C-alpha cells in the first residue's frame, strides 16, 4: 500500500524527475536507486502478473453472492501498475440495467462510472480503471459481452486492462477462484475486422483456447488487514467458568472444514448445463450449416447466370462485329458521300458489355444476394463454455474420488 501511494506520487512528478536524473543512493540497497526503472509512463513494461488486494477479493465475493443472476455481477477494478505487476487496490460494482433501452442505459452507466471515480478520488482512493471483473458459474465465463467489454478496454486502457473472472461454484465448495485474463493479439486482430469466417479463423489460428491468455494472479493482504484478521481469529475465553466445551472459547473466525464435505452436490447441475450448452451448440451449428448451404446454392445460381451471360455476350459480340461491319460500310458510304460519321452506338453498347465482363461477378452477386459468410464466433464461444464446464466436472469428480477413497481408508 505504501509502495503504491509512493508510486502514485512519483508517477505524478516523473516528467520533472526524468529531466534531472535521480541521485544514486548506494547505502540503501533494498530500495531501488532509481524508481524510473519500475515506473513506466509510456506503459512499456509488459504486465506479468495481477495482484488483488484483500478488499477487492471480499468485494467481488460479496457482489457475486448478492447479485440476482450470475451474469449481472460485474464491476470495475481500480489500481495501478508497478514494475509489471498490476496492483488492484479497489473495485466497485456496476449497476445492471434491463436491456430495454440500450443507448440510455449505457449513458447512465457512463455517468455513474464518472461520478463514482470522482468521488473515490476525493477520499484519496485509487481512481485509475485497470479492468473489470465478472462472476461466472462452473467455469463457463465465455460470453459475447465479456469479449466485447474487454475489447473496448484493450483499446482504451493503459496496458489494455485485464478481466478478473470469479467462479461462484468453486467458492461455494470452499475454494475461492479468481483468474485474470486478457484477449490475445490474434483474436483482437480478427475482432477489429469483425471477421470470424472459417478462413479468417484458420489464418489467425483461433480456437476457443486462444481467445484469452491467462495472467498469473496473486492475492495480497496489506499489513493492517493482516493484523486485523489475526486479531479476529484469536479465540477469546468465555468469562463463564461453567461454559460447555463448544462455548468455552469464542472466536469470530472459527476454523472451517467445508472442503472435507463429501457431498460435492453440484455434479447434477453441471451435467444439466453441459447438456444445455450442447443443445445451443447444435442449434448454432445448424444455423451455420444452413447459411453455408444457402451460400453454395446462390453461388451456383450466380455461376450459371454468368455462364449464360457469357454465352449471350459472345453471341452478341459476333453479331456486334457483324453490325459494326455493316455500320462501317455505311460510314464508308457516308464518308464517300462527304458526310460526318454517326456515333457508333452499337459498338459502344457492345464495349460496355465487354467491360462489364470484369465486374460481372459483383453484378451477379447483387442480383442474387449471396449472404455474408457466417460468423463462427458464437459457436467458438459455446465450445469454450462446453470445455470449461466439462473441465470443472472433471475436477469435481477427481477430488470426490480422492475423498471417497479417503473415507474408506480408515475403516478398511
Amino acid at each position, binding site marked *: 500500500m505504501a509502495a503504491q501511494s509512493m508510486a502514485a506520487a512519483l508517477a505524478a512528478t516523473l516528467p520533472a524527475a526524468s529531466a534531472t536524473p535521480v541521485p544514486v543512493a548506494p547505502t540503501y540497497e533494498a530500495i531501488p536507486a532509481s524508481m524510473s526503472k519500475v515506473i513506466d509512463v509510456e506503459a512499456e513494461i509488459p504486465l506479468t502478473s495481477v495482484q488483488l488486494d484483500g478488499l477487492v477479493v*471480499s468485494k467481488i465475493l460479496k457482489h457475486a453472492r448478492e447479485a440476482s443472476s450470475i451474469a449481472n455481477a460485474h464491476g470495475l477494478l481500480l489500481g495501478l501498475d508497478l514494475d509489471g505487476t498490476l496492483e488492484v487496490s479497489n473495485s466497485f460494482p456496476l449497476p445492471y440495467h434491463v436491456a430495454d433501452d440500450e443507448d440510455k442505459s449505457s449513458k447512465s452507466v457512463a455517468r455513474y462510472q464518472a461520478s463514482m471515480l470522482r468521488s473515490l478520488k476525493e*477520499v484519496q482512493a485509487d481512481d485509475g480503471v485497470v479492468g473489470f471483473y465478472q462472476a461466472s458459474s462452473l467455469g463457463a465465463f465465455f460470453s459475447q459481452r465479456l469479449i466485447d467489454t474487454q475489447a473496448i478496454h484493450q483499446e482504451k486502457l493503459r496496458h489494455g486492462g485485464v478481466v478478473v473472472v470469479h467462479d461462484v461454484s468453486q467458492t461455494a465448495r470452499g475454494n475461492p477462484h479468481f483468474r485474470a485474463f486478457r484477449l490475445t493479439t490474434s483474436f483482437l486482430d480478427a475482432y477489429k475486422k469483425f471477421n470470424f469466417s472459417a478462413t479468417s479463423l484458420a489464418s489467425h489460428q483461433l480456437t476457443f483456447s486462444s481467445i484469452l491468455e491467462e495472467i498469473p494472479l496473486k*492475492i495480497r493482504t496489506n499489513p493492517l*488487514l493482516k493484523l486485523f484478521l489475526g486479531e479476529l481469529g484469536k479465540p477469546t475465553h*468465555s468469562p463463564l467458568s461453567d461454559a460447555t466445551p463448544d462455548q468455552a472459547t*469464542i472466536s469470530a*473466525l472459527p476454523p472451517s472444514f467445508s472442503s472435507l464435505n463429501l457431498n460435492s452436490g453440484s455434479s447434477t447441475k453441471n451435467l444439466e448445463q453441459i447438456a444445455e450448452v450442447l443443445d445451443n451448440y447444435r442449434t448454432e451449428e445448424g444455423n451455420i450449416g444452413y447459411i453455408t448451404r444457402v451460400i453454395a446454392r446462390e453461388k451456383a445460381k450466380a455461376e450459371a447466370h454468368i455462364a449464360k451471360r457469357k454465352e449471350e455476350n459472345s453471341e452478341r459480340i459476333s453479331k456486334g462485329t457483324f453490325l459494326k461491319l455493316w455500320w462501317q460500310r455505311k460510314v464508308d458510304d457516308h464518308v464517300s458521300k462527304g458526310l460526318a460519321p454517326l456515333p457508333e452506338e452499337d459498338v459502344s453498347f457492345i464495349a460496355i458489355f465487354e467491360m462489364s465482363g470484369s465486374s460481372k461477378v459483383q453484378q451477379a452477386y447483387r442480383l442474387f444476394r449471396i449472404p455474408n459468410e457466417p460468423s463462427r464466433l458464437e459457436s467458438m464461444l459455446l465450445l469454450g463454455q462446453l470445455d470449461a*464446464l466439462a473441465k470443472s*466436472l472433471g475436477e469435481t469428480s477427481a477430488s470426490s474420488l480422492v475423498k471417497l477413497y479417503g473415507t474408506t481408508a480408515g475403516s478398511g
Partner: protein
Amino acid sequence: MPLGPPSSAIHIQTPSVNQNIPRTPTSITIHPVALFSILDHYLRRKDDQPRVIGTLLGTRTTSYSESSASENEIHVHSSFAVLHSENSEQVAVDMEYHRTMFELHSKVHPKDVIVGWYSTGGEGNLNTYSALIQNFYGQETAPNMAVHVNLSTGLEEGTKAGVKGYVSSPVGVFPKPENCVFVPIPVHLQFERSGVDLLTSTAQLPSSISAQPTSELELLESSLQNVAEMLDRVLAYVRSVLSGEVEGDPALGRYLMDTLGTSTDDLEKGGFTSRLQDTLMFSYLSSLVRSQAEVSSRLALVTS
C-alpha cells in the same frame, strides 16, 4: 459469529405502547467488506487526520419473538468514506459528498439504506464531536435510530484491534445534540466462509501474497493435516487422562464419544460402489466432452 468477548452491559428494552415508534437496535451484524473498506480508508487518510469517518449502509430486520422482546437487528452490508475535518473549535462533515455517494450506491444496491456511521480510533475517541455526528446521522436515518461502529485499528499503543457497536441515548435535563451516552450493543460478523479463509491463510504467509488459483486437492490436503493435528492433540489428552496425569472431564469425554463414535458403515454397504461408479462416469464423460470440443474447434480451422 460474535466479535469480541461478551460485554456485561445490560440492554433494557422498554416495551413501547405505540408500535409505530421504532425500537432501539439490539444488535449489529456486519459484513467484512464494510470493515475492510474502513481499514482501507484509514490507510489512505491524510497525515493530519487523527481518525476517519464514513457512512454504514445496510438493512434493518425486526423479528417478534414470543417473549414479547422484539429483536431489532441491523445488518451492515457495506460502507463508504465521507470527508470530514475536525479541530479544537469545530467539526465539519461533507454532507453533499455523503448524499452523492449514497445515491451512487443505491443504484447498485437499491435495498440498502443508511443505518449509521463508523469512525476509527477506539473508545477513547468518543467525544462531543462524535455526539454531534451521531446527531447528524440520526436525522439521516429518522425515524429509526442511527448506530455507530467504532473500529480500533490497533495501531495506537495499548489498544487492540477490534470492533464495537453503539447506540446513543440522550442525557441531561434539556436534550442537546452534543450531549449523549453511547450505549454498547453486541456486534456479530457475517461472512462468506471461503473468502475469509482465503484471506486469513494469505495473511498467515510471511510475504502476505498467495498465488491463485489453488487446486481443490491442495485445500483438501491442508484440511486433512489440520484434522490430523487435532486428533493428535485429543489423543495426547486421552493418554494423559488414562495414565492419571490429568483428571478427566466427564463433559469432554461425552463430547469425544459423540464425535468419534460416528460410523462409516453406511458407506460400506453398496453406497460406496455406486457412488464410485457415478464419479468415474462423471470423470469419463467430462474427458469425452472436452476431447470432442477440442476436435470440433480444430476441425473448424481446416474445413476452409
